[in-house]
């Protein structure tokens, strides 16, 4: 099946450039890692929905506010509903379609078409037919991809992971990684029950340490599954541990080699790990993070006692 066929009525008519009819004149600025991310062209309903979804992370800006030079820009355009196929999603795991190029990435999904362009700075455009209840999810899916590419270009990565923090923030955070079904949400619930803060049970950002010899920083993203709030700003936290998780009858830790850590990080880097034009960059970035943050394998039981063996850990 070729690019976009699952979702688009006319994949051949995919927009060739960032142009179209804006939904409206509202502009929002999102406080996401290595941002701000400024998106213009929203309707009143869309701007309000974005504010509702992302809370304090989303700030309204005037329609003519000039984006700062280092902001990531985005534009929102109207697309007719007839451009999108009706998809029966029962029993189906949603994954967007991607087509990767050296200077652009195209994506298609439920009620959305989008593209990222580098000229040379990263900018994005989103076409959708929705401004109602479906819009926040569409908008978030677009932002997830844009943030993943932005962070990679700056030496960081978005990881499919559960991020669990100890308070205060200076005590750091742990990232738990594993494929779908490995137990990220279960582990998050167990952690929450014993007083830890769930940053997100779905996606978290990992950025290089602020100075030589300092551990990488975990940054909360407002991209959550079942757990983790998405409306408040959180400070970056030093990484305490990187753990590949698996369920088992008893809690245990064992080491993971540097190469296995790198492979784990690659497998858990959504969107960018399938981009052939950026895999060298990804391997370089993740090799650095794997050396700075050696991982372990955590076997955890549903008794929830695994924190007793994690708490002494530090990088």
């Amino acid at each position: 099946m070729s690019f976009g066929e699952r979702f688009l009525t006319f994949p051949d008519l995919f927009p060739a450039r960032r142009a179209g009819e804006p939904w409206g004149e509202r502009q929002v600025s999102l406080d996401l890692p290595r941002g701000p991310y400024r998106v213009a062209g929203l309707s009143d309903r869309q701007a309000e929905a974005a504010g509702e979804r992302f809370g304090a992370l989303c700030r309204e800006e005037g329609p003519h506010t000039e984006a700062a030079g280092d902001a990531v820009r985005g534009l929102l355009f109207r697309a007719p509903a007839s451009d999108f196929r009706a998809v029966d999603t029962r029993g189906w795991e949603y994954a967007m379609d991607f087509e990767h190029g050296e200077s652009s990435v195209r994506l298609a999904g439920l009620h959305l078409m989008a593209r990222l362009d580098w000229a040379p700075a990263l900018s994005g455009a989103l076409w959708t037919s929705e401004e109602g209840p479906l819009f926040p999810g569409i908008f978030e899916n677009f932002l997830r991809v844009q943030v993943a590419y932005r962070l990679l270009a700056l030496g960081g990565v978005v990881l499919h992971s559960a991020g669990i923090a100890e308070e205060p923030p200076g005590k750091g955070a742990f990232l738990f990684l594993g494929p779908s079904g490995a137990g990220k949400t279960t582990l998050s619930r167990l952690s929450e029950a014993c007083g830890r803060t769930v940053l997100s049970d779905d996606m978290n950002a990992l950025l290089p340490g602020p100075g030589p010899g300092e551990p990488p920083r975990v940054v909360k993203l407002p991209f959550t599954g079942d757990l983790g709030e998405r409306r408040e700003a959180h400070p970056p936290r030093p990484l305490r541990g990187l753990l590949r998780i698996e369920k088992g009858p008893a809690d245990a830790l064992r080491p993971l080699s540097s190469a296995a850590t790198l492979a784990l990080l690659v497998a858990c880097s959504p969107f960018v790990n399938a981009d052939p034009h950026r895999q060298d960059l990804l391997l370089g970035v993740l090799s650095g993070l794997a050396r700075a943050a050696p991982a372990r394998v955590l076997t955890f039981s549903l008794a929830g006692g695994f924190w007793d063996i994690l708490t002494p850990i530090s990088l």
Partner: protein
Amino acid sequence: MISLATVFRRTSSVRFRVLDDEAVVLNQGSAEVLVLDPVATRILSLADGVAPVSRWAQVLLAEYDVPTAVLERDLLDFAEELVREGLLESVAPAPVSEPAPEARP
């Protein structure tokens, strides 16, 4: 047909990174990630598009205490597996130049 004379190279879609003697191999086509142990890493690094499998055997015989016949058989099996996985491809052997005809008196 793979033999000791076959020359292999890593396919262009393979990204290869060595960390502490182990390799991480990322296959662009499938976005699949593999971790190779130190021996497999050494073998993949020898697949340079120039040295035939027999040369790999010479190099590894100097590093590992293993009978020649066993090593050669294992190398051929491993190379075949890597070809199946899309990580290696054989390189067409350079044409053998014919000896120049003798000058006639």
